[in-house]
């Protein structure tokens, strides 16, 4: 089971001018302390035709993530308009939020995005070259498409065994005050070494 559950994504600053940065407020819950960071990405699908026009708007590490419920705002700049096919600038496309852990994607949240001119005149007669300053971006926040993937949340088996060997008593049932643990075997003398004194 996934250790991280996305509880909510609030789309902030929506609708907004096309050149405004994307802002997603992401709330997620983690079942146990994660030793590594989560990596979140926002991907803008430039054209439905081809993945070639996908743009990773930004990627960000999120951590440390202890067990519990957390939130953060993921802000990323608007897509580079130079990379968007002119024919796809206006109309419906998709923005994706993905999250990976240890390099494995475990959730992908897709939103439909509608880019349209606010000015009725422009809407009627759109310019051949898209005028991005006049475009408004509207993310269909009410209808996220969530795909979850099964990933391996643990480190490699070998690593796990290591940590088990090294740390014998991370016993959650014991009060934290009593965790000083065992003494290092420094200068250890065999018990009977004094017998000859």
């Amino acid at each position, binding site marked *: *089971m*996934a250790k991280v559950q*996305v*509880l909510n*994504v609030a789309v902030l600053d929506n609708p907004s001018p096309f050149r405004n940065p994307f*802002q997603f407020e992401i*709330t*997620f*819950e983690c*079942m146990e302390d994660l*030793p590594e*960071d989560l990596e979140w990405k926002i991907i803008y699908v430039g054209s439905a035709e081809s993945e070639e026009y996908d743009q990773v708007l930004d*990627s*960000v*590490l*999120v*951590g*440390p*993530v202890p*067990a*519990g*419920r*957390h*939130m*953060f705002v*993921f*802000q990323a700049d608007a897509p580079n308009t130079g990379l968007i096919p002119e024919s796809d600038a206006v109309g419906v496309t998709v923005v994706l939020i993905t999250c990976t852990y240890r390099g494995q994607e475990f959730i992908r949240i897709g939103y439909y995005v509608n880019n349209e001119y606010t000015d009725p005149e422009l809407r009627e007669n759109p310019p051949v070259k898209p005028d991005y300053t006049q475009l408004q971006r509207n993310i269909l926040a009410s209808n*996220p*498409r*969530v*795909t*979850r993937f*099964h990933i391996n949340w643990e480190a490699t088996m070998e690593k796990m065994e*290591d*940590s088990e060997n*090294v*740390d014998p*008593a*991370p016993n*959650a*049932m*014991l*009060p*934290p*005050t*009593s*965790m*000083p*643990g*065992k*003494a*290092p075997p*420094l*200068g*250890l*003398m065999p*018990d009977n070494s*004094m*017998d000859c*004194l």
Partner: protein
Amino acid sequence: MKLLKPSWVNHNGKPIFSVDIHPDGTKFATGGQGEDSGKVVIWNMAPVLREEDERNENIPKLLCQMDNHLACVNCVRWSNNGLYLASGGDDKLVMVWKRAAFIGPSTVFGSSSKLANVEQWRCVMILRNHTGDVMDVAWSPHDVWLASCSVDNTIVIWNARKFPEIVMTLKGHTGLVKGLTWDPVGKYIASQADDRSLKVWRTMDWQLETNITKPFSECGGTTHVLRLSWSPDGQYLVSAHAMNNSGPTAQIIERDGWKTNMDFVGHRKAVTVVKFNPKIFKKKQKNGSTPKPSCPYCCCAVGSKDRSLSVWLTSLKRPLVVIHDLFDKSIMDITWTLNGLGLLVCSMDGTVAFLDFSQDELGDPLNEEEKNAIHQNIYGKSLAITMESQLSSTIIENPEMLKYQQERQGNQNPNEAQGIGPENQTPKLTNVLNGESLEDIRKNLLKKQVETRTADGRRRITPLCIAQLDTADFLPALFNSVPILPGSSASTQLTPQISSDSSTANSLGLRPSHDPTTTSPNKTSHFPSLSTNTFSFSGLSCSGTIEPMKALDSRFTERSKAMPGVTSVPLTIVVLWFCLRVKDSSSVKEPKGKDETSSDSEDKIMVKSIAKRKGEMEGAEVVEKRKKGRPRKDAKTMPFPQVTFLLSKDAWISKSTDGAFSEGGFTVSTDGVTYLEVENEVSVVSGSRLSQLKWSREGREWDVLLPSRIIIAAGSSNVVAVACEDRTLSVFTACGRRLIPSIILPVPMSALHCSGHFVMALTASAMLSVWDVQKQTALVKNESLNPILSGTDATVSQSFLTQQGVAVVSLSNGKTYCFNSSLETWNLIADKQDSLVQCTDFRNCVSAQDALGSMGPLALTQGRNLSAGRLASRLSSTPHHLQQGMTLAFLEKQLSSALILLSASEYRHWLLIYARFLVNEGEAVREGQCHCSQG
């Protein structure tokens, strides 16, 4: 009989594989296929039962849905106590769910259903072991075990008290195991598999009791599930899919001899599920008719692949009712309400049907006493526990039952204690953080959230923690009731403010040290005298010029006067623990002692404790050995797994009014098998009283006689040191040879520690000495504690000696010092109030492998402060550069402290963290220095 198909109970048309009604009858769970995952849904029962509730829009129908299973859920089962829900699915996992205490309604993000979850059920345990789809799960009576069976041909018995511990894996089936049922008596568990066998296993030794194959030999084809069931009286086991004369049946297997003479016939296709009514019935007495004794009978529902359901009474030869065409596809699961009159059935077609019977149809359900009486008749009293209500009046035969009963009692107030109760859950973390509402936080989250750049220039956001998970998690308190360890708590609990002069305060001050030992309720009874025999203990205050014992006396009467003028500093040694373990022989004097303690300066009962460094053994135990002739033989072995570093010993001295020491024997153990026992006044030889020190380890022992009363003894694996009332200190080897003639001390000993060849002495005049008795040199010579004590009201709360002979002294104000003999200075190595500690964040530089290195004298003095600092760092919004600076400063402090303590492993530990931190934060200048120091 009434029949209802609540259309709102559905998985959006996807199959429902399992249904189970909660023991309290207020809700039920369904399990099956979700959109692209497995799905568990918890539904409200009320709208099923009552039409007006179904119409009332204020009554929620769906309580919670969980899509955490990665693949289809084949089985959902409530625990008998109703606290947990277990689900098993095609993703090979068993999940255990508990109602979460801390959050309000929420939706499943991204699900097409916009219904909010009314209740929050959270997965508290994932049980991984099966290598194939989990087909059925079953809680044992009283929820001692949870069994799961799988297409990997095995059955796993999980310890439901200690998930995810596996009690046993039952192997023997050669086909997919598709159904499980526990004997209501708890003696057996039965399983049915595709290998055309039904196996009964004993719970005693988890071996096969019987293997039944005959009724199944003809079985062809497969059914998705084979849910068999055991009758509530335990007498009959009814299988799913069996064949008799090429007709599908449900085979009845008698408990007595596992005979297979009867079956339920009539279904046209394979039987997928059988479920006994939890009640036993007796014939309804008609008005007017003479009540004649009739045999009680059971009721059983059978569901089949032929889409029909039959309900049978064991008193009738024909089914009570058969319902055809209730569904479009095979019946998958059946569940009865606890009162035995309602029945929910689910089908592969994704719908659920509810049957409501009247008592006229089924008969009068036996009440629990009657049911119990039947059990008693058949199995004898010990086995006759079927209901929780019975448990309190039943003989407790085994630890599980005892545990269960305690648990039940504990659960009377579950909400206060654990927040696990299904009702009136209080949100644990409200929507307010540091006085800010969640809304306020959200408004400013983007500005406030901590964003940093990693070394490779990537953005890294520290998420804002808005709710911590309730760590109570799976186990109710009773389950993890490892006794709170007295030694460990003492070190943190007993520090402050015991130095006050009034004796009442002393007696109050002693209280906290009682608590650890009294946490276990049954222990309390051992110490009924707790309040009456309050032992006060004195801190020792003494000016060098006063005759020692007088100085002690002055403690109670003159201290307030004496203190301002006296330069020496009060020194309080805190009782570590089990000072409760009062010797009976002296208890006669105690009431008197107590009275006079509060009024009379002459007498005192002094308790001292000695903390001793012990580095050799882990998991050591302090064993208190009692002297012969003591009436109470309740000497306990104290579990002492954690304070292996600081091994506590207790010393006990009491003095009565006439100035004579009572028979104050005390023991000191240096490891699990070494005892040091002191007996004062062993014998009186020509007017002088002799004291005896006994040492024993693994059968070897020696003893020495000393001419004066022993006040403190301490030992290491190499030496044993003894301080006597006559201000002498004697040092012996571990084999009992005197190493040096008695050392004469200026004032009485206050604390004594041994470690390796080192002996550390802290005198009542606050002077510290450390000797290396092997080389016969003094490492620290009569060093005063004044530098660290002056100007504060602090007292010494703890002292110990490291393996390398470094003396460490902790004060009640949270500061810890060590004495560096080469610089001849006191060095501050830990400060609990240190603001640096609060704001450091080097968490991402610590790996799990580092845990070991962090254990040592430094960790001992700093304790849990470090983790507290990390916690604070998550919630504080300290600017990053400031935090970075503080972390650096802190790490450097740790490094130097570890160095001065000569604690190699800790030095290495902190050096690694320090280096990682520098690398992460890109501090090139110091990095170079770090390399140097490493080299």
